[in-house]
């Protein structure tokens, strides 16, 4: 009985793993096929001749090295900024007692209801027109230095830490600042890692905002480079897959190193949220 259920579980898990891994398999084998092979029907699973040259051609089409540096820079600064603002805001909303705290928090939460598509032109007018930050790194970063969703998420984590700890620390004469960094932040390590990763991934994948506020090649990011492979009459799927593989590799490596934390963070957030 025990072995049968184990077998069923393994079969289900294997099937799940295949489903999850298939897009990666398709992308990587696709990056090594010719255009005719990748669009062929019936499906060609493996290239007749492995086309390493797709990678070289994909790299020629856009300056991916420059884009890579910009993307890493943008994603890293965004992530650091989001973490700092989220920690401060979440601490204030979970521990500090001040007038109108809950009302302010409710108003902030209400802004989550506005779809980001509606805000994008307004943000553009603020950043590019009013602040004259067009085509700068700051323009890429500024609108994403704070996130209500992450503040909300972190506040939930902070609320889990017992109030008594805070009061005890206060009795011992600890300042709020010290308490935040010595007790709250270390205890919310998993949550912070989750937020950091989500923010990094979102920033890595962002497309329309970087496109709106940059014009010069030297300021652009990877996601824009991927668009070069599509035209109005078709897409060079084989080259797109090669470029896609290049772009996704760094994220994959990060995920492999940090997967334990991501899992914990996600599952906890899920239960609590």
């Amino acid at each position: 009985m025990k072995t049968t259920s184990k077998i069923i579980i393994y079969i289900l898990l294997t099937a799940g793993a295949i489903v999850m891994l298939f897009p990666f398999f398709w992308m990587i084998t696709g990056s090594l096929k010719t255009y005719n092979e990748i669009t062929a029907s019936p499906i060609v699973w493996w290239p007749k001749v492995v086309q390493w040259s797709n990678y070289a051609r994909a790299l020629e089409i856009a300056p991916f090295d420059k884009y890579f540096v910009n993307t890493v820079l943008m994603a890293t600064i965004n992530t650091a900024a989001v973490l700092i603002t989220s920690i401060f805001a979440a601490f204030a909303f979970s521990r500090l007692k001040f007038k109108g705290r809950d009302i302010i928090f409710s108003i902030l939460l209400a802004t989550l209801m506005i779809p980001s598509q509606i805000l994008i032109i307004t943000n553009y007018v603020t950043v590019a027109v009013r602040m004259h930050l067009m085509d700068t790194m700051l323009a890429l970063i500024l609108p994403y230095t704070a996130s209500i969703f992450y503040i909300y998420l972190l506040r939930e984590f902070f609320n889990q830490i017992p109030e008594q700890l805070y009061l005890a620390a206060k009795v011992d004469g600890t300042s709020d600042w010290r308490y935040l960094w010595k007790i709250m932040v270390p205890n919310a390590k998993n949550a912070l890692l989750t937020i950091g990763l989500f923010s990094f991934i979102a920033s890595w994948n962002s497309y329309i905002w970087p496109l709106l506020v940059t014009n010069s090649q030297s300021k652009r990011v990877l996601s824009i480079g991927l668009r070069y492979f599509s035209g109005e009459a078709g897409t060079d799927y084989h080259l797109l897959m090669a470029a896609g593989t290049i772009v996704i590799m760094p994220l994959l490596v990060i995920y492999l190193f940090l997967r334990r934390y991501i899992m914990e963070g996600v599952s906890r957030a899920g239960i609590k949220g």
Partner: protein
Amino acid sequence: MKNKKILALLLAVLMIVSFAACKKDDGGDATPTPSASVEPVKEWPEIPAGTVLQFWHAMGGANGDALTKVVDKFNTENTLGLTIEATYQGSYGDLHTKLVAALQGGDTPHIAQAYANNIMVYMDSEAIVQLNEYIYDSQVGVEDFEDILQGYREENSNYPDGKFYSLPFNKSTEVLYYNETFFNANNLTVPTTWDELKDVSIMASNILGKPAFGYDSLANLFITWSQQAGSGYTNNNGDVLFNTPEAREALQFFIDGVEAGYFRTAGEDRYMSGPFNDENAVMFIGSTSGSAYIGSDTFEWNAAQMPWGKEKKVIQQGSNMFMVKSNEVEQLATFEFMKFLMAPENTALWAMNSGYLPVRASARELPEYVAFVAAGTNPTKEVGTSYDGSWYIYDPVFKESYSVRQAVDTAVEEAATGVKTVDQAITDAAASLQ
């Protein structure tokens, strides 16, 4: 008394002056070129060397490289010391979003690429330059403007006031692609009429055991074939003109083929180039700009004029270029660049390197272009340039013209999948747009 005489004289002079001013504003209609003698000579400013102009476009991949080639040529060859900075802004949709945002007061380009219905949207910002006063000017204008293909001139002046707000830039059309190896092996002749298309498709389908012919864009199928049958489509008030017996006849012709198994749609394949390359179909009508995606090691392909119905009508695709208001000097400089892009040798250079066609009749006769076509590297170029400028049809220019395309696309889809009868599909499409 004397004062009254002076006053009358003054009034007379004023009338003459204002009459002359009215004349001056009458800056020419879409087609006739006003004679230069009537217009007072306009004082154009000097363009200082070192002027830099921004050009936003949506040309990625090979077309992007071709554009770089043409822009580089301008930057090195122009004697005015102008520099064009061409910037890729993603797909047409992305470019549109960016232009809408920029026109809210941000950094606008001097010139950009766009479809005419989107230019109508930008016109709300009042930042788009009306081009008649440039085109027909005796000093800075376009000489032999009539040389630009008729269909292109019509589309770019199809705005509410009949004036030019854009000029043709990257233009493609549709041709019949066919598998030459298959046609030769089976002694088939390339169809030139609907009846021949039907006969050849039936013969080829019997050999293949599956539908031999497909049409890439269902919206284009409807727009082109209904007009070939003598139907209307829309006008630029957005009135539906396709609810006709002729349009029903055209769609029925296609649906009969789908039901009998000799015609097909691209369906899940999205583009017919996939099944064509896999030899699952041996003929299709598709855009000349898609020729880069066609070809296989196992057969030779070729292209021909699309088979005609009662009338020779073929769609013109691709987009146009328009000018954003800046100052007099930069606008004039921008117009110089527009003229450069449309000059015979440059539009030919563009056509030879990109998926598009020359915008002028004379460019088709240039020795280098004739030699390029004769070399046969891309058969669609010869076919595309064999279409007369008067055969070209286009989507009439109004903001919501795209929704008409979507409606007729859905109509063909529904009729082809048997969800609706031809009559019902067309009636519903027309009703949805009222």
